[in-house]
């Protein structure tokens, strides 16, 4: 049976067991996920899993329940329907049930690469081999992963959808004497990941990060590389553009207000890269401009939060959305040359940009701290500031203003008169993300976005390097 067959079968089982008035929505996702992990320059963990997950949500007699299972034979599916039905009947009433998604066309997803979907362990190991060889004797650690998801959706309102996605990602560090350098990339095709190029980049940055000095805490101008910008996008998505938190007045977002610098345009764009083209409720997914030239334009909704807000779902139903809220998961900070909402990047994100290696931008810059011409252009304008590679362990202190604390990681450098002059020890920071990107605070934006993987496949963050006027470092990480 195909995923769509299974979904349809479950809808039919619900009709048979609960009657024609029961409302059911079913998501079936087959996943083949594999991840090859290395540390101390050898592969120490290497895993793969295959499976199909069936999720059923149903609304019967004014009550709602959801359940999932991993068994897709008739007995397994029948048991899923029976226990979810029993749960719904015992539940308290759900007066806010938003109803099912109506039939509507679902767009085709992003490019699908069969070779990536079914990549062999040897292909991942070969990229790890190339990464390790490229670090030139430094210690290497990281992963190479491939993911395939084939999914289908059906509900008792007659709506159905299907799609599939493949994604590859590689994330590695090189280490020397306590200094780390990182290279990270997410792509639609495994062939776009060049282990040697990524390893070379990580090694150059690690060597440039050696012998760091401690700087006093305080406010510094910063150039954030795409890995660090991805953290901004992730936290803005979870806590800012989340329609549930917005409705609860826990978000900073104010629609129609110029809350960001005019250089900032943020688009949640699932069809731009690896992602399924519909959400957990079957709602088609499209590009959604959240911030247009600095002005907040939208927040995201699934059907329940949308109904409460009096607007339609934006296609952001995800597992747990009823509790955590609907969250953008494919957010792009548009680069300097493409600040039109929904517009394309100047460089094809699926493939290397002109002059940039397949593993990402590489080499040829002062001592390896600056890894590409795009970042170099931003660094060149900094009189005194910090070049930041990556952020780590960021957590919310104040949700309303989105004040975050976290640390720098994987290399940071003092920039003086446009040139990185010294490696700097990691800092702890405490900063309001929307304030840091507020009007007048973005001093520069790169032209070449890089897609950064999330911990979950199908979720990614894409951004160019970003120059900000001020970042609040509140203490040295070493004391």
């Amino acid at each position, binding site marked *: 049976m195909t995923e769509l067959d299974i979904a349809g079968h479950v809808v039919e089982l619900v009709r048979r067991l609960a009657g024609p008035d029961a409302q059911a929505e079913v998501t079936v996702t087959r996943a083949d996920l594999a*991840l*090859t*992990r290395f*540390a*101390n*320059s*050898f*592969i*120490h*963990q*290497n*895993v*793969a899993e*295959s*499976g*199909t997950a069936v999720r059923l949500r149903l609304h019967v007699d004014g009550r*709602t329940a*959801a359940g*999932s*299972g*991993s*068994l897709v034979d008739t007995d397994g599916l029948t048991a899923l329907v029976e226990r*979810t039905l029993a*749960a719904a009947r015992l*539940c*308290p009433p*759900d*007066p806010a049930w938003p109803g099912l998604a109506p039939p509507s066309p679902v767009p085709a997803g992003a490019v699908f690469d069969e070779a990536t979907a079914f990549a062999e*362990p*040897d292909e*991942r*190991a070969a990229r*790890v*081999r190339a990464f*390790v060889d490229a670090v030139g004797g430094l*210690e290497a650690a*990281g992963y190479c992963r491939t993911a395939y998801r084939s999914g289908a959706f059906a509900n008792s309102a007659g709506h159905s959808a299907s799609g599939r996605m493949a994604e590859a990602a590689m*994330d590695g560090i090189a280490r020397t004497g306590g200094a780390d350098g990182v290279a990270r990339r997410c792509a639609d095709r495994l062939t776009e990941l060049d282990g040697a190029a990524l390893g070379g980049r990580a090694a150059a940055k690690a060597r440039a990060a050696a012998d760091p000095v401690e700087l006093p805490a305080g406010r510094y101008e910063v150039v954030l590389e795409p890995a660090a910008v991805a953290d901004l996008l992730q936290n803005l998505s979870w806590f800012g553009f989340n329609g549930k938190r917005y409705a609860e007045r*826990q978000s900073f977002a104010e629609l129609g207000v110029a809350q960001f610098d005019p250089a900032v345009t943020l688009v949640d764009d699932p069809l731009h890269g690896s992602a399924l083209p519909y959400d957990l409720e079957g709602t088609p997914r499209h590009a959604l401009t959240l911030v247009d030239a600095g002005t907040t334009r939208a927040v995201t909704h699934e059907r329940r939060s949308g109904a409460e807000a009096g607007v339609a779902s934006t296609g952001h139903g995800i597992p747990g959305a*009823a*509790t955590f809220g609907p969250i953008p998961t494919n957010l792009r900070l548009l680069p300097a040359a493409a600040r039109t909402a929904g517009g394309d990047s100047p460089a094809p994100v699926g493939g290397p940009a002109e002059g940039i290696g397949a593993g990402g931008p590489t080499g040829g810059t002062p001592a390896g701290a600056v890894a590409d011409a795009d970042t170099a252009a931003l660094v060149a304008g900094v009189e005194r500031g910090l070049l930041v590679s990556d952020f*780590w*362990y960021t*957590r919310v*202190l*104040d949700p*309303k*203003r989105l*004040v975050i*604390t*976290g640390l720098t*990681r994987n290399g940071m450098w003092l920039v003086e008169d446009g040139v990185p002059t010294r490696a700097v020890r990691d800092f*702890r920071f*405490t900063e309001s993300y929307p304030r840091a990107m507020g009007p007048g605070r973005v001093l520069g934006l790169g032209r070449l976005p890089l897609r950064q993987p999330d*911990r979950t496949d199908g979720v990614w963050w894409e951004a160019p390097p970003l120059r900000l006027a001020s970042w609040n470092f*509140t*203490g040295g*990480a*070493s*004391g």
Partner: protein
Amino acid sequence: MSEFDAASAAVQAALDAGARYADARVMHRSYESMSARNGDIEELTQDESIGLGVRALVGSSWGFHAVPDLSDAAARDAGRRAAAIAAASARVPGPPIDLVPVAATVASWASGCEVDPLGVALSDKGDLLVRATETMRAHGADLAEGLYQIWDTAKWFVSSEGHRIDQRIRESGGGISATSIGDGETQRRSYPSYRGQYGTTGWELVTSLDLPGHAARIAEESRELLTAPECPAGETDLILGGEQLALQIHESVGHAIELDRILGWEAAFAGTSWLDLARLGALRYGSELMNITIDPTIPGALGSFGFDDEGSPAVKRDAVRAGRWVGVLAGRDSAAVAGLGYGGSVRADGWARLPMVRMTNVGLEPGPHTLDEIIAATDDGVLMDINRSWSIDDKRLNFQFGCEVSWEVKKGRRGRMLRNPTYTGIGPVFWRSMDMLSSEIVPWGTPNCGKGQPGQVGHTGHPAAPARFRNVRVGVRA
């Protein structure tokens, strides 16, 4: 075909395909959660998952494959694939791997459970959350939330060394939170902690929490916090409540003593550790009051089990004794690499995940004081409790925590409530400054410990009690 038969078939297939060691876990997990908001049930989810994961060691390289199918053919195919993946790992080989010996065991084990949590009527469980959230709303909370979670996991473990172990572990817990929204900020109070208290117990744990009985208080406190003075910035004596100290232990001790981190196996993601194995047994981690054990045998604590996911029996060990670092959390392979003689702390988050070093119950032994005595002995300080945020560096040294609530302590008395408390420090400096520790130990449960790639969520326990720390930096803000 029984679960043991499926696991045995997978192990044999891996051996036939060239593995020199293999093990397999069949797991069947039922999960139920319900959340309520402002007097309404927000979400009810029931998940059921069953499958098999097999691990193969070919030469000195590991491979792992998992399938949701217990048929003989699927199990054998999973075993063969695990061996093939291990062979691919050998393209980038490491040093020789051994496993510290563990006696082959045939055993069964089950956690204690007085009231089957999945047997309690959903309507009763829903009523509990509805009642508590209605009460919070009535007492001023803008947002009143309640949650419970239940896991019922059966597992069958087979190894090529002769292990044959089945376990059933039932876990339950829940909690409530009240959020008040003011002009430009929000304040939250939770009970007994944010997202609740959890244990390897039945529904009796949730009943004992008396969530409705605490609803009015936390709602009123969340509103009071909106107008409370800010926690001042500076250095002061800090008294931590037990719930916050449990997370402090988790982040700055538990993760730091994970042997895979110490060996660099988590360097690119979770990070490493500031601890150096060469100083095991000699390093001063904290004050004389600091006695931390690794103890998966504590009845009802969330990190308890009969055997870990490598078949090692649950054993209590010292991690820190009288302030000195003496033990680690280890698995059979990492212990062998480190030259240690014990594993016992390896677990997998379900059948589809590779077993890895995880915390069990890592916590403090009781001190000689009470919270009242600690407050009475403090001339000028701050009492903080209930975690709101946590952040720590990749070596587990530099931390910053935010708490939901704090009170000033002046001349031995608890004074005004203070809002937005934070504190920051360096792990060993902080622990060496602990000069008073309460005897009022609670085995706090943390059901959301993230680690590994692909990500795994671990369930850990942390016995902790209120304690005092001297000259801590507090009040860090943007």
